């Protein structure tokens, strides 16, 4: 009986607390947003200059990429005659050539498997460690963080050869695991650092309240901290996906003779064959970029949402 009552009270308190914080956060963000807009309004000249610069820069960045997309749709003959214009006959066969000759479908599946497992693994392990370092009263937390962060300074080449020897000795050469474990490890320092910094920004009263109300530590982490962390998760996910989708050096070393090859290796050997044949080459580049673009569009939503407060409001 008392237990039930306890539970009931607890639930109410927890619910009340959640409501409260949500309201507070909403209020703060609302306030900030309004002021932000107000502040921006009365400053036309600075905005015009900013806009001009941004548009020019956007062209500089986007043009080479756009050029590759256009080139991928031109036949080789047309490319040499009509370098700048848009293609007159769309040459889809470039994509067929790239897909068949470079065996891109196979590489794509390999890359997707490796990168998605790496992504989930890094996020979970990194979020746990970041939370521990920020919130769980660990002794020497700052020192541990420094020791972990120092790893990002190591040039990957300084660990390449011993890592190769370890992988060879454990008979993992040529498997997906031989990529996944090091990828997770190498991505962790930055992920942990970003997560720790974001956890530091959560008001500790919020978590204390959850704890006092009887949330276990795990529950406090999952129910209170994680939802607030969506922007951090998005940021990390972008970093992780991007670094490993195109990783070349380690993949080349470990997968040299294997059917498990990932897409960057496929690209490089393809470019060795088709180096000056820019049509199929550009098509291959475009195919490689599609998953990245899809992923970024998906995450960017959360990224922006997180920045403008939508993710917090849920």
């Amino acid at each position, binding site marked *: 009986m008392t237990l039930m009552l306890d539970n009931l009270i607890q639930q109410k308190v927890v619910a009340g607390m959640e409501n409260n914080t949500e309201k507070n956060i909403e209020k703060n963000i609302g306030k900030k947003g309004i002021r932000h807009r107000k502040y921006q309004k009365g400053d036309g000249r600075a905005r015009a200059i900013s806009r001009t610069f941004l548009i020019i820069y956007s062209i500089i960045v986007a043009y080479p990429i756009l050029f590759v997309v256009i080139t991928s749709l031109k036949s080789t003959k047309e490319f040499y005659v009509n370098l700048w214009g848009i293609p007159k006959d769309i040459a889809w066969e470039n994509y067929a050539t790239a897909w068949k000759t470079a065996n891109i479908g196979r590489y794509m599946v390999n890359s997707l498997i490796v990168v998605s497992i790496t992504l989930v693994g890094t996020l979970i*392990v990194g979020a746990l460690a970041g939370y521990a370092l920020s919130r*769980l009263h660990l002794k020497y937390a700052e020192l541990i963080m420094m020791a*972990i962060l120092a790893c990002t300074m190591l040039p990957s080449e300084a660990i390449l050869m011993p890592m190769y020897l370890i992988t060879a000795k454990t008979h993992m050469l040529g498997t997906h695991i031989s990529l996944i474990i090091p990828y*997770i490890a190498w991505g962790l320092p930055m992920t942990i650092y970003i997560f720790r910094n974001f956890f530091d920004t959560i008001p500790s009263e919020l978590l204390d309240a959850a704890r006092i109300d009887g949330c276990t530590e795990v529950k406090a982490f999952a129910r209170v901290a994680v939802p607030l962390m969506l922007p951090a998760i998005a940021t990390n996910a972008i970093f992780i996906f*991007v670094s490993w989708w*195109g990783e070349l050096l380690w993949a080349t070393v470990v997968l040299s003779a294997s059917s498990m090859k990932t897409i*960057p290796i496929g690209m490089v050997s393809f470019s060795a064959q088709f180096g000056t044949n820019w049509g199929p080459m550009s098509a291959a580049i475009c195919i490689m970029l599609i998953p990245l673009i899809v992923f970024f569009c998906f995450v960017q939503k959360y990224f922006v949402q997180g920045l403008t407060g939508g993710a917090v409001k849920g």
Partner: protein
Amino acid sequence: MSSRGKKSRKRSRLLGILFLLPALAFITYALYVPFVWNGVLSFQKWDGFADPQWIGLKNYSKALTDSVSLLSLKNSVLLGVVSTLGAVILGLSLAAFVYKVYRKEGALYRLIAFMPIMLPAAVVGLLFTFFFNSEMGLLNNLLRLVGLNDITKAWLENRNTVVWCIAFVNIWKMSGLTMMLSFAAMQMLPTDIFEQSKLDGIGYGKQFFRIILPLIKPTVLLSAVYTLAVNFKSYDIVSIMTGGGPGTTSYVVPINMVKNAFSFGDFGYAAAQGVVLTVIVVLIVVIMRKTVGSESYEY
């Protein structure tokens, strides 16, 4: 009550260790152990098959006197410093500009400016091989289009331009990172802090340098350190764009290392070069922290 608090604190500490363990296991396995092993290797002569021999500091004296090794060190440092400086300054100005425009269009500019980071280094390398190509390349064709035939050249085959071209590519690729992180930090700033300065009639430029920049300094430093680390690791871009050429002009340390280890079978020498590079990177980061200062302001 206090004993209960103590107990729960102890329990959360225990849980903290539990939460931390998987991460430490991964990092130890794939970072600490190989790194220490690499250090050991740098004092040995080893071809990968026979028993390794201890040869003291010979690898280091070779790494610090050999002309190719010194050239690759110089290139790595030059590329790292120039690219990082360029990327951070450009990224900061982009963030400052994006902060001024409306939210919706700002999101579009951010997306575009962030795109190059999304591109795998291998793709960026291929893209810019194309860009700098002497006959079909975009750059030379553009220059011819506007009548600047005189300065068209074989950019990547020219000893005077090749390193700067690579630096340009690094800046192009990395500036979006500083932009994104700085912009996120600027969003976190309470806007009240601008009000006083606005009343005083201070322009946006001054506001940015006097108020915003000091407040987001920790974020800028973080992105600078990260950019530096990435630029020092740039094996992919250089190896695809030039392969270290022409000759050895654009050799960077990673290329020299891989060549020494996997082509010439001198693992110890390559390991020593890795250690030297690491020391230099750490030194630069320390100098950066000292000059920029890592104090942060409460707001």
